[in-house]
């Protein structure tokens, strides 16, 4: 039992060693991590550049790491990638004519749904008010109820 725990600890620490980030400077790594989580991997399109293990993602992380080391601003680094891969690399694309539907679509749907709901509810209210009895029907109801 004891040796198993030792083995577990040893293998655990070995694994942690492999997962250590490649760069040496923790400040560079922190900025890379923050930037890469805003950027999309082009190979595995639903992963961020930080998450992806694709070779291209590794290369792009290397490029970003080098640009950070050269003291380039976040803006400059993002421009470098957008000029090559387009707005697609951004998880938050800019508001432009081509992305209007993307940004405004949800709000249009919410407003449209709200209006549709209000109209339907109002119509229903009218329907309830319309269900009035005639004098003849009222007498019939009273007759039926008094029969007991």
């Amino acid at each position, binding site marked *: 039992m004891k040796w198993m725990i030792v083995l577990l600890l040893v293998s655990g620490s070995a694994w942690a060693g492999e997962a250590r980030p490649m760069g040496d400077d923790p400040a560079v790594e922190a900025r890379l991590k923050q930037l890469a989580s805003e950027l999309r991997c082009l190979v595995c399109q639903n992963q961020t550049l930080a998450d992806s293990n694709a*070779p291209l993602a590794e290369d792009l992380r290397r490029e970003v790491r080098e640009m950070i080391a050269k003291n380039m601003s976040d803006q400059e680094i993002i421009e470098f990638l957008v000029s090559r891969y387009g707005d697609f690399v951004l998880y938050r694309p800019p508001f432009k004519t081509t992305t209007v539907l993307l940004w405004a679509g949800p709000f249009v749907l919410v407003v449209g749904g709200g209006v549709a709901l209000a109209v339907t509810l109002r119509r229903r209210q009218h329907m309830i008010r319309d269900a009035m009895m005639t004098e003849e029907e009222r007498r019939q109801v009273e007759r039926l109820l008094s029969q007991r």
Partner: protein
Amino acid sequence: MSRFLLPLTIFGIIVGFLAVGLTLNPREIPSPLIGKAAPAFSLPQLHDESKTFSLDEMKGQVWLLNFWASWCSGCKTEHPVLMDLARSGAVPIYGMDYKDQRGEALAWLDQWGNPYQIVAVDAAGRVGIDYGVYGVPETYVIDKQGVIRYKQIGPLDDETVAKKILPLVKELQAQ
């Protein structure tokens, strides 16, 4: 009857959107480089390491730049199309061996044939990043002024060559 009209219309619109969405290829990301100057490079050649191949040498020519690798299965699919195009002599094809091993790349060309005038070696994939390559094969049509005019993502096929590449190349050569 009319109470079904509105939901049915909305349903129709959604089906329309989804139908168009199904025909699109999510891997085809429009390149921001079209209409822009091709990024400069100067790289060693595959067949002779001591020589380089650079973008500047290509000024005044309409040419294709094909990113490929011996490990890439799509490149094998595309290869006969490139061989046919090279044989026709319509447009010179230059290769960019992307993140590959020299020996394997040379063996691949020996086995299947070499459609390229010159192959440059982009071992680290940096020129690939400059060109916005995210999956080989990718092919660029570059005009006499060194401007990228078209980008093919994924393997070229006979239809794309006949309908898009060749008419564009003819137009650019006439300029």
